[in-house]
């Protein structure tokens, strides 16, 4: 029964969730702050930003979309999308020239993963903000 009830729910109007999703992409946690979920929003903001900064300080590299064989395309395009999901953190890093070349080493490799994961975690936060704005979640 609950599944049927969920299916019958009318879709939320675009104006209800677009601001939260857009702001949530630009500034991690800001979608939650806009929706008055202050505690969760601040925790997301601090956690994702600190993770991204740790990745930068470990001299992790940003991905660039590349074509070639399937695995190269998947890894580089997927990584680029992951980086892009970090919003203003990614944009500021590129604009201010903190984007570093790919270097060999375990710590640098961890840094690259931190940068991508920060973006992907922000993507989860964006989806959560969307569900709250659409009334599917408290």
């Amino acid at each position, binding site marked *: 029964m609950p599944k049927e009830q969920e299916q019958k729910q009318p879709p939320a109007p675009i104006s209800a969730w677009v601001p939260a999703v857009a702001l949530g992409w630009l500034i991690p946690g800001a979608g939650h702050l806009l929706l008055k979920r202050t505690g969760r929003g601040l925790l997301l903001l601090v956690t994702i930003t600190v993770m991204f900064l740790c990745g930068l*300080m*470990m001299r992790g590299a940003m991905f660039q979309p590349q074509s070639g064989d399937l695995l190269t395309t998947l890894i580089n395009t997927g990584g680029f999308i992951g980086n892009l999901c970090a919003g203003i953190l990614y944009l500021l890093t590129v604009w201010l020239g903190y984007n570093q070349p790919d270097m060999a080493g375990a710590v640098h490799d*961890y840094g690259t993963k931190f940068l991508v994961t920060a973006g992907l*975690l922000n993507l989860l936060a964006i989806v959560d903000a969307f569900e709250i704005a659409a009334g599917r979640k408290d």
Partner: protein
Amino acid sequence: MPTMKLSHFEAAFLFALFTSIVLGIVTKRTDRDRFHYGIYTFVCFMVALFGIGWLMYLGHR
């Protein structure tokens, strides 16, 4: 820019910590469930970290 020199364990610990916090926040519906899920995820990361670490150690002996 300041740099961080971390060991494998420190980097993996930080990764587990940040990821667990966000997964806890976005996954569950009540604060109590969020807290418990965050702890559960962090413990799973740590178990996997030590488990895989020991496997690699024993595999290279």
